């Protein structure tokens, strides 16, 4: 037999064999032990699912305009949700001006659809710009002025307020966080030290504490005659806290851009600032977009803390609804409101997390 092999005819590529889908029995019961575990989990799932179905559908009360519609503790009280959902979405916004609130929701939804459906990550800068410009526009629309009657932020509430605080936090925390991250890399020791101290300080304090400081202590330090709405103080607290979070994210992004990129930028004649703006920053920001979306998810959930300092966000709107005279009754009324809340938060946050996952996969 010869050891010198020469192929006479080249092999053309063929299709890969189609793998048979894994049978459910093999997936769930590969061994007796795992099979038993699967059964146990399925049983628990079925039990819990059945209980929840009983509570939320079979024994639920759907119609009515007071707590009398929901007697007993057995079933959910969707009548409460159906009767009260409007103020949960917009708070005490004047009813003749409600179109402005609905416009905000529509603008937000349209922006989001545009973000999710855009074809390539190339428009990233525009998306981030949208996150900064959108809340400014919505604020102007909601506050009014000029031809529109002024509506003070104290009258905003519910989901509208939650979304606006989220967007406002983003619009301020992102640029501030970027500056902080750059400041920590500054050549000036004082700038480096101050930015580092701010970020580390904010990261070491619970958000609730920051909120309380903003709500109760801040007015004492402000110059007299300079009153700041509770709403704005809350936004300020959120912005500062999340700027520190964003700063850490941006810092990681800036570090992920290798030294070779900066050196190459130098050798083609770019100044340090031009290199930062044109070479380092775009790559750093692209790298951290999923992490930024995660911060946004966290902010949305953190807004529930607003209810503690007396800003009427979505959570406190529901609680206020359950305390109104018509709806004082069994605990299942409030619980139904909470479940409704959970569904809203779940929808928004899960959507966002899917989006961030998609961004991660795309790169």
């Amino acid at each position, binding site marked *: 037999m010869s050891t010198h092999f020469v192929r006479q005819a080249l092999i053309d590529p063929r299709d890969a064999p189609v793998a048979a889908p894994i049978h459910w029995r093999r997936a769930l019961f590969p061994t007796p032990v795992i099979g038993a575990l699967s059964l146990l989990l399925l049983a628990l799932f079925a039990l819990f699912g059945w209980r929840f179905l009983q509570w939320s559908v079979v024994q639920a009360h759907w119609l009515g305009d007071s707590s009398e519609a929901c007697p007993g503790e057995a079933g959910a009280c969707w009548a409460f949700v159906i009767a009260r959902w409007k103020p949960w979405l917009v708070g005490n916004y004047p009813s003749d001006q409600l179109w402005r609130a609905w416009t905000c929701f529509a603008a937000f939804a349209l922006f989001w659809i545009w973000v999710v459906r855009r074809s390539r990550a190339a428009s990233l800068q525009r998306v981030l710009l949208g996150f900064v410009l959108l809340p400014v526009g919505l604020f102007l629309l909601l506050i009014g002025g000029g031809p529109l009657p002024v509506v003070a932020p104290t009258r905003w509430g519910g989901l509208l307020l939650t979304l606006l605080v989220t967007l406002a936090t983003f619009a301020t925390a992102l640029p501030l966080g970027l500056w902080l991250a750059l400041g920590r890399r500054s050549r000036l020791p004082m700038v480096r030290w101050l930015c580092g101290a701010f970020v580390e300080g904010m990261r070491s304090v619970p958000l609730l504490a920051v909120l309380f400081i903003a709500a109760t202590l801040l007015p004492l330090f402000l110059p007299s005659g300079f009153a700041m709405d509770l709403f704005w103080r809350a936004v300020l607290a959120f912005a500062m806290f999340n700027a520190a979070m964003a700063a850490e994210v941006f810092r990681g992004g800036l570090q992920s851009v290798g030294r070779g990129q900066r050196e190459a930028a130098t*050798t*083609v004649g770019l100044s340090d600032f*031009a290199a930062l703006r*044109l070479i380092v920053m775009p790559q750093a920001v692209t790298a951290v977009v999923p992490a930024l979306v995660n911060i946004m998810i966290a902010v949305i959930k953190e807004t529930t803390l607003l209810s503690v300092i007396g800003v009427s966000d979505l959570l406190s709107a529901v609680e206020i609804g359950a305390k109104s005279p018509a709806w004082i009754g069994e605990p299942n009324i409030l619980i139904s409101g909470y479940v409704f809340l959970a569904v809203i938060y779940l929808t928004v946050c899960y959507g966002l997390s899917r989006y961030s996952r998609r961004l991660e996969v795309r790169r």
Partner: protein
Amino acid sequence: MTTSATISAASATIARMQGINKWYDSYHALRDIDLQVSSGERVVICGPSGSGKSTLVRTVNLLEPFQQGRLHVCGIDVGADEITRAARLAVNRRVGMVFQQFNLFPHMTVLQNLTVGPIWGSGIARNEIQELAHRYLERVGLMDQADKYPAQLSGGQQQRVAIARALCTRPQLILFDEPTASLDPEMVNEVLQTMESLATEGMTMIVVTHEMAFARRVADRVIFMDQGQIIETAPPDDFFERPQSQRLKTFLGQVLKH
């Protein structure tokens, strides 16, 4: 310029290093380097790894600062204590560089890679530099790749883009830091040929490389470095046929046998 770095009258000397010493912490990386490169000259630097040859070329465009000595490059004179960002910028607007790892900008197309420096660094008009960029892309054989991203190109193509990028800054001198060391073997030649054609057109080049055949064909002068110092400098024929120092003889014996 705010420093005492001054622009002197143009001369035939493009780069001159005088008594340059550099330390990384306590490690003495460059020791008493004296080197003069004339306009149009092709200098190849070789030596074992860790001999300081990369550090030396990176010192020429001030990517690496040095602690002692004077550097005179493209009419700019910089002492060890005068290395400012302004000086580095001034040098880099006259000196091009090609890296071992290409260091193309991954978020930009090939064309943008070529034009970003001249447009934002030197303030050259966009259409003017785009025209030049297309000319250089054609010269490195990549005119139909202008709108691709670096990741879509092979290593050899990327390095040729990097060469075109360096050319677009209209440098008086191009530094090559092991330009073929991270390429697959079959792509080495396309890059070397591009460099060779540059050399025949009279571009002043300082090349750090292990490609001895290239050094032989192209170099006017070959420098052998070891332990941070220049051990031997000679025209290629003398360098390869009649090495004087024992270190170079040993090195050539190791490199050329394979």
